[in-house]
């Protein structure tokens, strides 16, 4: 084997080696690249706006003035929120009575039964598996001077098992 032919073989090996490195770099890059359009990030802002939108709609109509005046008001509010939310949305709402004591406020839950459209046994799983979850909090003073803190957690139904 002459000196020239050996040089040629090395050149070929160099090119093949370069090609292998290049193609393996692309292959790895494809797998490690995080999709920029993660739907959970994309729509959680929308869920937050929706949660605020529902609370705001109910507050403007004076719905929460009924809280202390009606029996089984939790069921009424639960059905109302179910109607207001788009289909395929889970929610869990807690209404706190805020008592101002000096510089601090003590929050006591007012609802004695859960205000949610998810069964208690499935609630944790439903919210954990949701691809989109968000919350909104609003403060409201009722006509009789009660200071309420309204907190709602909303989640899109669905998602994959973890």
């Amino acid at each position, binding site marked *: 084997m002459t000196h020239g032919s050996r040089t040629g073989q090395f050149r070929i090996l160099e*090119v093949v080696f370069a090609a292998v490195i290049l193609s393996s770099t*692309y292959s790895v890059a494809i797998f490690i690249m995080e999709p920029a*359009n993660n739907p959970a990030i*994309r729509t959680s802002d929308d869920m937050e706006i929706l949660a605020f*939108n*529902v609370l705001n*709609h109910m507050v403007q109509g004076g719905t929460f003035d009924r809280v202390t005046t009606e029996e089984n008001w939790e069921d009424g509010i639960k*059905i109302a929120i179910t109607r207001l939310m788009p289909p395929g949305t889970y929610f869990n709402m807690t209404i706190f009575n805020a008592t101002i004591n000096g510089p601090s406020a003590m929050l006591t839950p007012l609802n004695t039964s859960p205000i949610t459209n998810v069964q208690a046994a499935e609630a944790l799983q439903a919210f954990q598996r949701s691809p989109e979850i968000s919350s909104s909090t609003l403060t409201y003073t009722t006509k009789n001077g009660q200071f309420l803190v309204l907190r709602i957690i909303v989640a899109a139904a669905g998602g994959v098992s973890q």
Partner: protein
Amino acid sequence: MVQPIYEYVFSGLVVVLMVSTSISTIFPITLAHLSQTSSLQLQGNARNILDKLLLTPGDPYDWGTDLSINSSQSDGLRDFGLAGSLTFNTLYRLDPSKVERLINTSTIDNPYYIPPKRAAEIMGLEKEFGFSLSFEPVLQISSHILNKTIVTRVTTPETIPVANVNVTAVLIRLNSANEEEFEIATSSTDWNGTAVLDFSGADNFDSVAYIILSDYYNIQTRTVGGSNLIEAVLIGNNIVVKYPIGTDLEETISNSRSPLYTVGKRTYIGEFESSSASISAYQLDTGGKTFVIYPLSNADPDISLATFITDIEGETKLIAAFRPFPTTYETGPIAGSTRHTLIRLVEVAGVSMRVKFHIWRLSE
């Protein structure tokens, strides 16, 4: 001499293979990222545009009541927004007089319609985006007259009946002396979402107009109906009547009589003009059609029904103007591979509505 040629040929082939592999790998990745970027940009645009539509009043801020802005003349409209003007501005409460400008269907002839393409042009979207805005009441009511009762049913849009809804019906009718009278009945829906409103005390049920207002924990909606009347529409604070062809309009206008009843969201019934003087009105000719406009200068902006009577060729007729529901307002059929949808809750003239907003790029 032969061996170097094989080397170069082989090296050349490997280079071609590398370049083609690189292009075929990079190209789809770049395309996917461009598409994702475009989708994210569209999402941001969708939010901004919808916020602008629902949370700003437009310019002039009271353009809904400005009748010089209409389907053929909309130069005065400098900015487009549906929020209430300053007098009753509340978050996500839309101005009924502006929302009505979006309605023009086969059954509702609206001389004050603003075409969606004009709205897109005002907002600077016409070259880049298409949009669709659809309104749907959160609760729906159907009703019909049965003898001297009104049977009503409240359901969700998915036709699930809603129980325990407070229902109020206001009935305006011509009595046996051909004068206007009104009656109110209230009830609550049963497990099947049905409520029966009884007007058995009415002496005459031939010519009636009614409105049913329902309320479930402040989710409010309404429906209207009637029989043997001339239907008109309420656009802003104007009753817009398209009288039957051949009607002597001048005589009809001079025969138009008070009382003029209005039914709103809070005040269930209001007698608008108690004098017996004829109601001031004028004719509007647009698009080859003639309308008679009866302005209600001081009416509550969220009235949903207004009635009065007039004599047409010796026969007393009940005129009932209903505030129409908006449905879909779109620049064209929803299209494009990149599109985005947003949902919001709004209130229009006392009705809780879900607004679905679709936006897409025209270039895709």
